[in-house]
């Protein structure tokens, strides 16, 4: 017996609909490979009586449905990982549910799997869910699929039923998916037919049973044969004598003495040492976690990629990507998101989708946003250049997650299809006369005064009074008003959440350009979402953005109803009206808070002007800049 035997590990995902018998199949695999312990079996007997659906028999599904909520409801809630081992291989099973949240969970499970078992209920044949699971598994780049045609006991182990399903799936798979191999396997998980032994009840099936197939399928480890890449996770610097770069090798092989390229800087250097704890290695392979030392003092930090010189990775900040959305709140174009790709982080904007993919039919559909469990193809632009490869070439350099900048939740995942060349052509125009120079001849500090508040709160009125007051003081101002801008620049936009976000994005950038001109920019837009106000704030430097919250209770605004809009909204003639059927997110920390239940219009303007004076916006700026 070899006590440290390193058996090959096969990771696979099982997916199927609610009554395809997936949990039963996994429970059966664990049971048949003798991996259920006596005390677990006792518990299973107890649980089978309490929750079971198999009358007096053991309900194997209960072995794998781990959380009490799912036992009671008889469904699987989330991805669960199971472990079993045979004489030949170790297995990790990602068990994913087939009901709602299916897409997100299937994608999560598939992202770490080498193979997928897709379950089909023999009685029902290929369903849209079968195609949905296949599409996701194919998108994530899984090459090998087992189509497990289960519940053959319910169709009297009929060969023709099997053949019909095989033919049906094969035709679709050829058209829509990119699998290298598909194995069709008739079985009954409930009765253990064709699981660990070939079934006597299906003599027409002469190929290997499920476990044989899982034990013997060849996994070609492509990663080792690809060019060398390693993300730097952490710079190891215990003292001034030692500096090494710690990471797990994503692909390829690296040897001491190899010339490598550090990306994104492009600096070339040589590997001087490869450390694995106390050992100095001559060579290290994809999958190994090592610490690499180089010959010189080149600048390397977390997020850099060490790459082969012959085949270096690419660098870009604009891509066409495929996105799968995993959050209840939809993806909104033009909103800022954070992405993680390897150990690199960047701020990202996702453009309006080119199309979304109907996951039931594979057809392309038009879309303005991406909702939970939807897949779409979009352009993505980043605030910096990152090192990458196409997902098809290297999953670790082409797959990223999308994170909410405020609550830090993981919202979705993306796969890079290819970089867009156009970013190479757009350069920031270098201009010598800058905003400080322009502002100094006006004897003012350029700033954006951003009013926010519900419709009818008095934003426009106060903004106009403020401009008059500043003009009389000799200051150069401009007012951007919501209604006026919507007549011209933004006349193509409506009032849906997506359009509101785009509206604010354009206005933020117009304001920023006017700020460059040295002006005091006064804006009066409802701007109901915290994220967009933050986005506008982030377009300019600190101190150049003053948020003014005009706080008027909706009852007062509605009773004024200068434009008659509240009346229309209440009558249902106006959709997405802020305060009625579209939310207004109150600012948490505005620079200036105007409580309009206690201030009149002139007092409100006084408050703003004294804030500007106190903070030296209205005096001459420093000429050094």
């Amino acid at each position: 017996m070899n006590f440290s035997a390193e058996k090959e590990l096969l990771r696979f995902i099982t997916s199927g609909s609610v009554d395809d018998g997936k949990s039963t199949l996994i429970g059966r695999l664990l049971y048949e490979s003798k991996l259920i312990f006596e005390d677990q079996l006792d518990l299973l007997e107890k649980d089978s009586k309490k929750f079971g659906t198999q009358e007096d028999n053991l309900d194997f599904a209960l072995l794998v449905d781990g959380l009490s909520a799912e036992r009671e409801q008889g469904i699987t809630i989330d991805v669960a990982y199971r472990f079993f081992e045979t004489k030949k291989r170790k297995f990790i099973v990602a068990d994913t549910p087939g009901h709602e949240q299916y897409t997100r969970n299937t994608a999560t499970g598939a992202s770490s799997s080498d193979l997928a078992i897709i379950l089909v209920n023999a009685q029902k044949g290929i369903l849209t869910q079968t195609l949905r699971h296949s599409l996701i598994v194919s998108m994530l780049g899984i090459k090998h699929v087992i189509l497990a045609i289960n519940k053959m006991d319910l169709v009297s182990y009929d060969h023709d039923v099997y053949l019909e399903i095989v033919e049906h799936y094969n035709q679709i798979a050829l058209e829509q998916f990119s699998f290298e191999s598909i194995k069709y396997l008739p079985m009954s998980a409930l009765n253990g037919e064709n699981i660990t032994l070939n079934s006597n009840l299906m003599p027409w099936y002469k190929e290997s049973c499920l476990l044989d197939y899982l034990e013997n399928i060849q996994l070609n480890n492509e990663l080792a044969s690809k060019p060398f890449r390693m993300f730097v996770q952490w710079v190891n610097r215990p003292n001034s004598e030692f500096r090494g770069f710690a990471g797990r090798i994503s692909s390829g092989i690296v040897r001491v003495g190899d010339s490598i390229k550090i990306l994104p800087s492009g600096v070339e250097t040589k590997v001087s040492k490869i450390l694995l704890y106390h050992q100095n290695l001559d060579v290290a392979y994809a999958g190994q976690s090592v610490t690499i030392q180089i010959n010189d003092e080149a600048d390397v930090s977390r997020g850099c990629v060490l790459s082969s010189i012959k085949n270096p990775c690419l660098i870009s900040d604009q891509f066409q990507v495929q996105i799968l959305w995993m959050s209840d709140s939809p993806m909104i174009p033009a909103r800022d998101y954070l992405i993680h790709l390897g150990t690199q982080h960047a701020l990202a904007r996702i453009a309006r989708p080119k199309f979304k993919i109907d996951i039931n039919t594979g057809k392309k559909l038009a879309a303005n946003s991406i909702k939970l469990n939807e897949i779409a193809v979009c352009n993505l632009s980043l605030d910096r250049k990152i090192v990458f490869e196409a997902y098809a070439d290297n999953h670790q350099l082409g797959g990223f997650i999308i994170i909410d900048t405020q609550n830090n939740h993981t919202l979705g995942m993306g796969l890079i299809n290819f970089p867009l060349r156009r970013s190479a052509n757009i350069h920031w125009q270098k201009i010598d006369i800058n905003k400080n120079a322009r502002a100094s001849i006006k004897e003012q500090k350029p700033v954006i005064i951003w009013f926010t508040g519900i419709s009818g709160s008095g934003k426009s009125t106060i903004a106009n009074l403020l401009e008059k007051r500043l003009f009389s003081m000799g200051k150069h101002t401009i007012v951007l008003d919501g209604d006026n801008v919507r007549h011209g620049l933004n006349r193509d936009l409506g009032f849906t959440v997506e359009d509101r976000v785009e509206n604010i994005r354009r206005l933020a950038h117009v304001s920023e350009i006017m700020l460059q001109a040295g002006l005091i920019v006064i804006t009066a837009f409802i701007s109901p979402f915290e994220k967009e106000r933050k986005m506008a704030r982030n377009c300019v430097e600190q101190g150049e953005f003053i948020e003014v919250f005009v706080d008027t209770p909706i009852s007062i605004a509605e009773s004024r109803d200068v434009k008659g809009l509240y009346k229309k909204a209440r009558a249902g003639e106006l959709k997405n009206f802020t305060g009625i059927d579209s939310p207004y997110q109150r600012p948490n920390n505005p620079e200036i808070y105007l409580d309009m239940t206690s201030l009149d219009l002139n007092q409100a303007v006084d408050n703003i002007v004294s804030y500007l004076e106190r903070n030296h916006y209205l005096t001459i700026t420093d000429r050094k800049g």
Partner: protein
Amino acid sequence: MREVVAQSNNPVMLYSIGKDSSVMLHLAMKAFYPSKLPFPILHVDTTWKFHEMIDFRDRIVRDLGLNLIVYTNQDGINDGITPFTHDSTVYTNIMKTVALKQALDKFKFDIAIGGARRDEEKSRAKERVFSFRNHQHHWDPKNQRPEIWSLYNARICKGESIRAFPLSNWTEVDIWQYIYRENIPIVPLYLAKPRAVVEKDGVQILVDDDRLPLHDYSAPVVKSVRFRTLGCYPLTSAFESNASSIEDIIKETIQTKKSERYGRLIDFDQSSSMEKKKIEGYF
């Protein structure tokens, strides 16, 4: 573990002195060599651990030059909470779960690295590698972040914290095979040797000190026994075995018919007891 260090402000490693902790510590030493561990290790001491565990802990800390923090829930001690006077659920909650939360809050750790494995128990099979806890350290199994490829999003808001489980995908056999291959030191209680044990309700307890109320148990008998998991001595059952080497343990582990947590009295109460404890903040 490198991701934890790179993405967090104030990480800590939870160290229970058991075999999983030993493997985890060894992996950390490898990951950061030649640097010292860039985080302290935290032992939540219930004061009822086997004394061989404490001796072992102190030796390892000395040998590896570690920064050890030992934390005990002093309120629990003052209230006289012991495994004999209180039900095991209450005792575990106060001396382990509450103690851990107190320690994490006291030192303001934002990520705690732990040695839990998904194969240990059903509710752990759905655990993430980076698992989120709200400001009260509660786990919400239905609202976890998706974990795709090996990309870990360790960004948290103020007050939230993360438990990171680097051994998620290891099995009990993997642990022993790795201990064998890398020659990792472990507490000798894992290896069989003749020890005096007493019995009650089929559970065999090692008399580790004079706090055990002997009159509740059968007379001591010397048997060749060992432990499969290590916890508080009055709550951890020994079992008869002749496995006195790591090779023997691997053989025995592959052949056993009982699950690993069988020797832990804290899991017997109800089938979803581990899940309940986790939601409340145990680990």
